[in-house]
Structure formats: C-alpha cells, structure tokens
C-alpha cells in the first residue's frame, strides 16, 4: 500500500488518475518542491492533429496546464517567437548543456535528405525535420513520441509514402516513450509527462507504451461486448449491436478509450461507429478496411 491511499469518494478510474497526476505535478511545482523542467514540443511531418487534440483538453486547459508543469521552450503552434529567432533557439539547445525533455509529434520525412519537411530556415539554409529530430533527439534527457506518425510513421507513412516518412525511432537509436493514437488523447500525454516529472518514467509495456493508458484491450471493455459474445452483429452503422462484421478493430487495439472517451469524456468512436485501430502500430494501412459492407456470413 502507498503512503497516501486514495480513498472513496475520490474516483480511482484511469481518467481521474491522469487528472490527479497532472494536478499534483502542478501543485508540486507551485510549492517549489519540484523544479520545473524544460520541454521542447517539436511538430514534424503530419497534420498537427495531436497539438489540436491536446488543446482540446480542458479543466484545466492544456496551455495553462503545460506551462504550470514545465517551461515550454519551443512549440510551433503555441510560442510567440517565429522565424529565424525560433529556429535559432533549437540550435542553441542542441549546442548548449541545458537539460530538456523532447516531445515529438509527426513523422520524420527522409526523402531528399529530409527536404520534404522543413521546420524553418537559418539565413538561406533550410532546416529539415530530420536534422532537428537527430540533433535534439540525441541531446534530450527523455524523448516522447506523441501520436501515430511519430510512433511508427502513421498516416504520413501510409502507402504510397511519397515523403518516405518513418517514425522517430527510425532515425533515433535510443529509448523512446511511445504514445500511439491518431491523435493522442490529451490525458495520455499530460499524464505521462506529469509522471515523468514527479516519479520518472511510468511503467511501459514491451512496445514502450505507458501501461497506465495502453493496457486495456478495447474489446474487453466495450459496452457492445455482450452482443459479440452472443453473436449478434450490426449489419450497418447505427445499429446498437457489435460492430465486428463491419470492421471494428477494437479486438486488436489497446487503449482506455472505452472508459476515458474523447472530447471531454463525452463519446468515443464505438459510440457511433467502428474503432479504426488508430492507436495500434501499423495504423492506418494495416488497420484497413475501416468499414466494409461486403463481408462474412453470419
């Protein structure tokens, strides 16, 4: 038993665990027990979906939360600095001996030596995502891959993969905490970061995903599961039965979506349609088809 057991009526479900972790980290920082660490949030080849998803987090909102836990040194979407000034900051970090945590969303485009994805320019020289991923990746104290593209290429690396994108691990030979999902849930990122700040790295599975968010097989906690067990399947979307026959990837995907849900915990994909396996390695190509009406008997 821990020193401070969490007693009822405090909720012990996993969404409250994430919220508690983040709040506690913020409190510790405010009280001066925890020194603020520095965070670089780098957006590489992708759709910026993860940062949008993170900004969708609320109570408290993401920007407030993240800046009270860490010093956000760099974030394409959130910082005020721009242009050369911003890029220079990254080079300073790479050259200096400041400690920082690196979070990366998006894949690394390899084609033409990285020219398919630029993060900025120094003078006339284009600075590629590839260059930055390697430079900062080597230097950071911890690296977190945020979202499908960063974890293993994701949609950026989907066929025909014109930019020859790969996941961050493809260019970095070091330990990386992986948070798959397309996009990542704000709680998964904030919870992992808070844990990292207060207690060090959270427990990971053999694919380096934090167990506290990625250990539940969706199919095991799905509210439609009784219908699966009885062999009652929906033939089209909108029917309230198990979606196995129209293409549900819940049985091969591990996240806490069924209990955490999305958009402020209001609903989730299986609430309306199939799970497309966005948090499984190999998404999207290996999770296709997302939906099919031309399907098996019974």
């Amino acid at each position, binding site marked *: 038993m821990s020193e401070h057991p969490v007693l009822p009526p405090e909720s012990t479900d996993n969404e409250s665990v994430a919220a508690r972790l983040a709040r506690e980290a913020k409190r510790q920082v405010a009280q001066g027990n925890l020194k603020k660490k520095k965070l670089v949030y780098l957006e590489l080849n992708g759709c910026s979906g993860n940062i949008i998803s993170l900004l969708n987090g609320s109570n408290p909102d993401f920007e407030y939360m993240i800046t009270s836990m860490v010093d956000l040194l760099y974030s394409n979407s959130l910082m005020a600095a721009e242009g050369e000034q911003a890029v220079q900051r990254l080079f300073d970090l790479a050259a200096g001996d400041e400690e920082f945590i690196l979070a990366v969303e998006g894949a690394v485009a390899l084609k033409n030596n990285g020219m398919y994805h630029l993060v900025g320019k120094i003078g006339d020289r284009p600075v590629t995502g590839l260059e930055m991923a390697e430079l900062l990746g080597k230097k950071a104290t911890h690296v977190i891959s945020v979202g499908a593209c960063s974890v293993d290429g994701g949609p950026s690396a989907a066929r025909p993969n014109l930019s020859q994108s790969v996941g961050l691990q493809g260019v970095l030979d070091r330990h990386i905490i992986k948070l798959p999902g397309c996009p990542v849930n704000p709680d998964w990122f904030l919870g992992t970061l808070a844990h990292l700040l207060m207690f060090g790295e959270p427990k990971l599975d053999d694919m380096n995903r934090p167990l506290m968010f990625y250990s539940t097989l969706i199919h095991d906690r799905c509210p439609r599961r009784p219908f699966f067990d009885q*062999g009652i399947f929906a033939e089209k979307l909108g029917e*309230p039965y198990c979606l196995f026959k129209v293409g549900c990837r819940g*049985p091969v995907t591990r996240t806490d979506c069924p209990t955490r849900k999305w958009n402020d915990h209001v609903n989730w994909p299986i609430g309306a349609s199939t799970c497309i396996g966005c948090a499984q390695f*190999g998404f999207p190509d290996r999770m296709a088809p997302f939906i099919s009406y031309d399907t*098996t008997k019974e």
Partner: protein
Amino acid sequence: MADMVTIQRQMDLTFAEINYLIRLMYATEDEHTKNLTLNQMWNKIAHLQFLNQLLVAASFQQGQAAIPLQNSPQTMLPDSTNAPTANNQMEFTREQLAQFTGMNGQPAYVAVNGVVYDVTNNAAWSVATHFGLSAGRDLTQEFASCHTGQQWILDTLVPVGRLIA
C-alpha cells in the same frame, strides 16, 4: 425477439442470484470458493449487462426485423450444413482455399502449417482482415514472423481441414 416480460423476469432472477452470491462471499473463508464465487458473479453481471442491452435494443427494434440471434462466436463450431466444413479432414488446394475470403457472405479460412482454420468469427479478424492480411490464403510465413512460439494462438482456432499442395 424476446419480449420485455421475459427479459425482465430473467433480470430479476439474475439479481436474486447475485444477491445470493454476495452472501456466500461473506460466509465463506475458503480462497478457492471465494474465487469461484467471484467468477460466477462476473458471469452473472455480464449476463445482466447483456439483458440490459437487449432492452435498449428492444426500443431501437420497434418497427424493425427481429434481432438476428446467432451462435456465440466463442462456442461456434464449424457449420455442419456447409459442405466444405462438414468434417475436419476436408482437403483444400490453394485454389479452393482462395475462395474463402470472407467476402460476399463466404466464410473466412486461412492456412497455417498445412492446417486450414476458420477465422470467420475470430475477434482479431474483423471483416476477414488482420493487420493488412486477408483470408483465403496460406499465412504460414506471416504467422511465423509475427507470432513466433505462440502455438497457443492456433489452438484457439477452429480447424476445418488440411491444405494439400
């Protein structure tokens, strides 16, 4: 479709059984009985959940066709009315196997190490696809590369015959 009264009677019954199991849990000291009781309770609650879902579905159902009650996929045996699945010793050539893609209402079969398995209702094979692989093929190599040493996976599948040549 099961009528509301039947569902409700079943629910009442299940509640009574759960109450009984809870009392048993209090009374017993024996670890083994405790675990067994817990397990039964789990089953009862799952059943309750199903009945509840059935009620929800019943309201959705109004004006629609009956719920297609089928065999449970977990206990599903090969369909004995369907010629190729009639016995486990059915022989398949690669061409024959290729017809069982799971599309157009066909069952989904795959071969591993010379044995043909039915994955039609296997949870990991939604719409007869599994991590980009489709049914109707010999997947011996793919199985070996992803599930090395996981023979148990094959043991959970329903064999329907052998692959010849």
